C-alpha cells in the first residue's frame, strides 16, 4: 500500500486527471468533494449536484472512495464574507486566493492530515519542490505558462506545500490534460473550463453584491474636470480599469480611474493614457511569503493578474514582512486595490501581497488642484 493521499475532486477535468495520476503512481487515494457553497433553498435546483455526479463517476472509474466534505461554513466565513467586506471597502478581492488559503489548503488539508493523509493533492497547475536539508518547500509555476495558477496559491505556507502534490503541474498544456482524461475514460474531458467565482455563478458579481449590500446611488465624475457624467448604484460595484457597465448614455468609452466608497464617487476618464491609469509603484499589505520569512530587498518578476505578464520590479518588504513596496522601472497599468501581486524568483514563487489603497493616495483628481489654486 502506497502513501496516503487525499485529493480534492471537483468534477472538472484537472482534478480528475490529478486523481488518476495519483492512482497510477501507486498512492492510496481518497477523493474528497468539497461542498463549499449551495443555495439549497426549497424550489431551487442546485448546480453543484451535477459536479458531484461527475466527481462520483471519476471515482468509480478509478475505483477510489469519494467523500463529500461540507466546507460551507469555512467558505462562507473566509471567502464569501471576505469578498463582500472587501467590496464594501472599495477593494476588488481575489476570492480564489482566499479559498486556497483557508479552504483547500486550510480546512481540507487539516482534516486530511488528521485522517492520516501523508499528502493532499489538487488539480492546480503548479509545481512543488518538497523541502529537504532544512530548506522549506518551494512553490513553482506550472509547465504550461498559460494555465499557471500560482497567482492564486501564494498564500499557501511552505509547511502545507511540503505535504502537497500537484500531479498535473508538469503537463505542458490543457489540451494534453484533456487528452489524458479521454485516454483514461474519465468522462469529463469535454467539460468546459470553469471560470470566475464559483458561488457567484451565472448571476454575476454585480447581481450578487446588490443582493447582499445596500444599493447606494451616487455620481460618476470625470476625473479631469469634476463634471458629473452620470449615476451609479454604489461605488463598491466598480473596479479600477473597468470599462463596461458604466451606463453613461453613449459618448466615448470611459474607464474607471478610481472609486471612492467613502464619498461614493466613481471617477472615470475617456483618456486611455490618463496618468492616473498608470503607476510606477505599489504598496502591498497583508503579505505572505512562502518560505515563512520575507526576502530581503530584491529584484524579482511580479505578476499583477492571473496569467498576466511577468514584470521586473524592485521589491522592498518592510522589516516585519507584513507589507512591502514594489517599484517598476516603467509605469504599469494601475491595479485595483484588493488584487494580489505575486513575486517570483525565476520559476519559484516567493509570495506576495494585496494592493493597498495607499498605493494611490497621493494621486488626486486634477480638478481639485485647479479648484484650490
Amino acid at each position: 500500500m502506497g502513501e496516503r493521499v487525499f485529493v480534492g475532486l471537483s468534477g472538472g477535468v484537472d482534478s480528475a486527471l490529478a486523481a488518476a495520476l495519483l492512482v497510477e503512481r501507486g498512492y492510496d487515494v481518497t477523493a474528497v468533494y468539497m461542498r463549499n457553497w449551495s443555495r439549497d433553498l426549497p424550489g431551487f435546483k442546485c448546480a453543484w449536484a451535477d459536479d458531484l455526479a461527475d466527481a462520483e463517476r471519476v471515482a468509480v472509474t478509478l475505483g477510489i472512495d469519494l467523500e463529500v466534505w461540507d466546507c460551507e461554513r469555512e467558505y462562507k466565513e473566509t471567502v464569501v464574507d471576505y469578498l463582500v467586506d472587501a467590496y464594501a471597502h472599495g477593494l476588488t478581492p481575489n476570492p480564489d486566493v482566499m479559498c486556497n488559503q483557508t479552504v483547500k489548503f486550510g480546512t481540507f488539508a487539516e482534516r486530511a492530515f488528521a485522517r492520516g493523509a501523508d499528502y493532499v493533492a489538487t488539480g492546480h497547475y503548479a509545481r512543488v519542490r518538497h523541502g529537504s536539508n532544512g530548506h522549506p518547500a518551494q512553490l513553482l509555476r506550472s509547465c504550461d505558462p498559460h494555465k499557471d495558477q500560482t497567482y492564486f496559491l501564494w498564500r499557501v505556507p511552505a509547511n502545507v506545500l511540503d505535504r502537497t502534490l500537484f500531479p498535473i503541474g508538469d503537463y505542458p498544456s490543457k489540451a494534453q490534460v484533456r487528452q489524458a482524461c479521454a485516454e483514461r475514460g474519465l468522462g469529463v474531458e469535454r467539460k468546459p473550463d470553469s471560470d470566475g467565482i464559483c458561488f457567484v455563478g451565472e448571476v454575476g458579481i454585480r447581481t450578487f453584491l446588490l443582493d447582499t449590500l445596500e444599493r447606494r446611488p451616487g455620481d460618476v465624475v470625470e476625473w479631469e474636470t469634476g463634471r458629473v457624467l452620470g449615476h451609479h448604484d454604489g461605488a463598491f460595484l466598480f473596479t479600477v480599469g473597468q470599462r463596461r457597465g458604466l451606463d453613461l448614455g453613449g459618448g466615448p468609452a470611459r474607464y474607471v480611474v478610481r472609486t471612492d466608497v467613502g464619498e461614493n464617487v466613481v471617477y472615470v476618464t475617456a483618456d486611455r493614457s490618463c496618468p492616473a491609469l498608470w503607476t510606477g509603484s505599489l504598496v502591498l499589505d497583508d503579505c505572505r511569503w512562502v518560505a515563512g520569512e520575507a526576502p530581503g530587498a530584491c529584484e524579482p518578476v511580479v505578476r499583477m493578474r492571473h496569467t498576466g505578464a511577468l514584470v521586473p520590479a524592485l521589491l522592498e518588504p518592510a522589516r516585519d514582512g507584513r507589507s512591502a513596496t514594489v517599484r517598476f522601472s516603467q509605469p504599469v497599468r494601475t491595479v485595483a486595490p484588493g488584487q494580489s501581486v505575486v513575486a517570483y524568483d525565476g520559476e519559484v514563487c516567493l509570495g506576495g501581497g494585496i494592493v493597498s489603497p495607499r498605493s494611490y493616495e497621493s494621486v488626486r483628481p486634477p480638478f481639485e488642484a485647479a479648484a484650490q489654486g
Partner: protein
Amino acid sequence: MPGAPTPGDGEEASREVYLDYAAATPMDPGAVRAMEPFLSHEFYNPSAPYAPARRAHAALEDARASLARVMGARPASITLTAGATEANNLAFACVDGEVVTDAAEHESVLAVAQSRGGRIVGVGPDGLVDPDEVARAVTPQTELVSVEAANGEVGAIQPVRRVAAVVAEERGRRLRAGESRPILLHVDASQAAGYVSVAVSSLGADLVTLSAAKVYGPKQVGLLWSSDRVRLRPLVLGGGQEGGVRSGTENVAGAVAFAHALELAERMRPQEVRRLAALRVDLEGRVRREFPWCVVSGPRQGRLRLPGLLHVSFPRLDARRLVILLERRGVYVGTGSACAASRMRSSHVLAAMGVPDVVAQGSLRITLGRQTGAEDVAYASRQITACVRGEMARLSLTDDDMRQAAGGDA
C-alpha cells in the same frame, strides 16, 4: 489498491435494462401515433373559428372526455396542465387557509405546503400515512388536505379513502357548527395511475392530479380534476383557455396522447398489476437470497404497495456509486425521488420513515414497467449482486458487517 484505472470493472454490458419507470416511462407507440397529426398537419389553434381549427378543438375535447371517462368524471371538471407539478400547485392555489399534508409527498406538494406554512404529518416506518394523524393535524382553520394516492419512492399506497373520511367528518362538523369555512381533499395520483383505480368516486377526493409522463404518455402534460365544490384560481393568466383557469394555447397533441395513454394503462391495469407484482417478488427474492441482510422498505403487504416498485437498501454502501456501476452493466435504476437524488441528500421520504442514514445512503429504487420481462429481472439481479459484492470487497465489508449495519441481529 487498484493498479492502473480500468473503466468499470471490465464487464461488458450484454443487455440494457431500464428499471426506473417511476422517473420516466417510454411513450406508448400508439400514443405517439395519436399525437403525431397534431404536431404536423393538424397543428391548428383550437380557439380559431375555421373548420380545421374546429377539428383540433374537437380532438382536444374528445381527449378530455376520454380522460374524464377513465376517472369517472365530467369532462368540464378536468383542467389540462403542463404536468403534475403544475396541477399540484394549482390545487393548492384554490385555498387561502391552512393546509395539511404528509412528509412523504412529492416535492411539488411539499414545497408549496411549506411555503404556505402547512402542517406536515409524519409517516409510519413503512411509509404509510396514518389517517388518525391527519385527523389530529386538521384544525377548524384547515382548508386543504393533500395526500398522494401512492408514494413514488417506497411505493406505499396511501389510505386515501380513510383520509377522505377524516375530511368528510370535519366537513360535517363545520356544517353542524354553522362554520362556513370549506375543507377540501387533494390527491396526487401521479404515481398511482395504471396501478390503482383513479376513479374520483373511489378516491373520495375533491381534487385529483394525474401525470401523462408516468403512464407512457408525454412529459409536461398533466391534469387536475376538481369537484363541483371547488373553484380553481388560475396561476397562469392570459387568453383564458381551460375555462380561464389555465391560459395558454392548448397542447392538443399532448392531450390526445395523454388520453390514449391513460385509457391504455387503465385497460392493461389488471394484468399489468399481476405481471409486475410477480416480477417484483422474483427480483426481491433473488436479491434477498444473495443478501439476506438487505433492507427492503415500504409496506410488506403486496396490496399496500405499488406492484412494480422495489425499494432496497444496502447499508454502508453508496447508492450513487451503485447507480454508476450498474449503468456500466447496462442496468438503469434510481436512488429515490429524482429531486432528492439531485441534491445528494438522503431522501426526505426515508428520513420521514425513520430510516437511519447508513441504510438510506445505500438505497436503490427499482421500478419495473411495461417493457420489463423475466429475463431482464434475472439479468438485473445478477448485475446488482456483482456490483454490491464488488463494492463490499473494495471496502473490505463482510456479510456480517452488513448484517450489523442493517441492524439485523443483536
